[in-house]
């Protein structure tokens, strides 16, 4: 466990220095031991009793559930709420440089199937490009679109649709 963490920490430092020069000063690599202190970012520390690093649960805990961003109807732009969530994700990815993610793009059901597949891909890429702009290596981010095939809210109303128009970041195991 400690050996693995140390390796991750080294990788993380490398990425932070190489890919994120502008932000490197405020994103110091964590100590080789289990991190227990807040680094001054919104990424919460995860204690010994929390989920294991490398799991989706660890990621979601650390970003405080901000692994999902939401879109307006037919839109794929990153608004201020999305930007804040993606900054939190970027900080996590900066800290844990061995973690790669898949961004799943989704749409609501009120669109035609093929267009929605393309729109979901566009949303996933918006999120990916924003993370890249924050210094995350493009090779650590994969995208996949599910279009309207995998809703999380099942009703057919505006509230459900707003929950389904989303891009979800998922840790690759």
């Amino acid at each position, binding site marked *: 466990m400690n050996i693995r963490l140390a390796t991750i920490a080294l990788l993380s430092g490398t990425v932070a220095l190489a890919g994120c020069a502008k932000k490197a000063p405020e994103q110091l690599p964590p100590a080789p031991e289990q991190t227990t202190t807040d680094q001054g970012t919104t990424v919460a520390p995860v204690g010994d009793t929390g989920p294991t690093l490398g799991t989706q649960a660890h990621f979601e805990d650390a970003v405080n559930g901000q692994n999902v961003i939401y879109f307006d109807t037919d839109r794929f732009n990153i608004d201020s709420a999305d930007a804040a969530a993606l900054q939190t994700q970027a900080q996590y990815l900066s800290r844990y440089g061995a973690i790669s993610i898949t961004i799943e793009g989704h749409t609501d059901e*009120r669109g*035609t199937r*093929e267009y929605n*597949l393309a729109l979901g*891909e566009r949303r996933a890429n918006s999120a990916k490009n924003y993370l890249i702009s924050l210094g995350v290596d493009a090779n650590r981010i994969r995208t996949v*679109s599910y279009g309207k095939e995998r809703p999380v809210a099942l009703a057919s109303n505006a509230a459900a649709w707003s929950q389904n128009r989303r891009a979800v970041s998922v840790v690759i195991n």
Partner: protein
Amino acid sequence: MKQLIFALALFASPLASSPLAAQSSDLGTPVAEGGSVETLGEAEAEEGGLSFTVTDESDWSDIGVAIAGFAADRDRPTPANANGTAALGREISRVITANLRNNGIFRPVGPDSLPQPSFAQITSPSWGSWSGRGVEMLVHGYVSARADGRLTVGCYLYDVALQDELIREGWVVPPADWRRAAHKCSDLIYSRLTGESPFFDSRIAYIAETGPKDKRIKRLAIMDSDGANHRFLTLGSATALTPRYSPDYKKLLYLSYVDGNPRIYVYDIGTGRQQLVAETGNPTLAPRWSPDGRNILYSMAVGGNTDIYRVPATGGRSVRLTDTPGIDIGGSYSPDGSKIVFESDRSGTQQCYVMDADGSNQRRLTFFGGRCATPEWSPRGDQIAFTRIAGDFNIAVMNPNGRNLRVLTSGWQDEAPTWAPNGRIIQFFRTTRNSGRSGLWQVDLTGRNERRLKTPVDASDPAWGPILP
């Protein structure tokens, strides 16, 4: 600029995210290809002269048609029916009756409420027993088991008032394909009485859906135009979407998530094998055949930007046809192959556009206020069907110049039109609000005759093939 090239994946590309073997992991047992149907003695048809033949569909009135049980020369055993050729004859008549029902043109009366003619009466109807039944047309036929095991099926259409034969035709079919003889006879009747091209002897590919809305299982499936001979082609472990039959019915294009990503494959129905249409490392969507089956259109998203590409069906270089920022997707060829109607949001919302087959002369077709999606060119060339989004989703048609828009359906979400081979009927799928349940429906060009096509489970993404070869 438009010649951006991608290697076609007839070989394993280093970009492939899974080995070729894994790509087949959701495939079911291959379906045996149907036998051939041999046509006997083309009818010596008298052209024209039918007082009730009306070509304007808005004025069609129901034509009463009596379909008597097809007679057997001798009641012989046949693999096509456990009770022999006489029972098979009545079954053929029932299939024809079901075909002619519910399309707003005919008022068919089936064999179960009609006298059974003898074999000798097939070519010499007993007019006295048919004239008082309020039907204008009479269908007779026969079934004969041949020494080679195949079946000969004859089909005769008579005008009751004129007491005269209008047309006749016969076919030799393998026993397993007996329903095709019924569809051929239905087509003969339909074409003779309406002047339109046939459509019953055809098949439909679609997506069979089961399971809850958030964990829908979607399987590739095929069936005859009347829903018979239904087969599942994939097992359901990977989501399958948007199939398209090749013009010769030997292959299917469809989208599968079998390697975890949306990719289009070409599935060989005879061998049960499939290949990626293009391995690019990017999502490939919305597969379409050219009318001659020589080319495949597909849409590919690169960095979130989707464009339309064309690749030879036998493999080779992909040619990019669109290059505007945004989503250009789909594409449906005009029947002569010279033009492609497609969907693009380059103006800000989904609209339908047309271009020459080489990608030149792109121009917007639709300006009606709502949105235009999934355009499909009629096999007759005279109309384009599409999903009209204006509040609800409905099936609509317009002329190829974008004018004379007519909305044909009024569901909450009617989507993805596909044309019958003769361009007179449109099939689509309808999704129910909240439950997400979906089914296949069809509507004629008047919009007045709409009906659901029964499927074993929920259904979406229908794709109607041409008349069977």
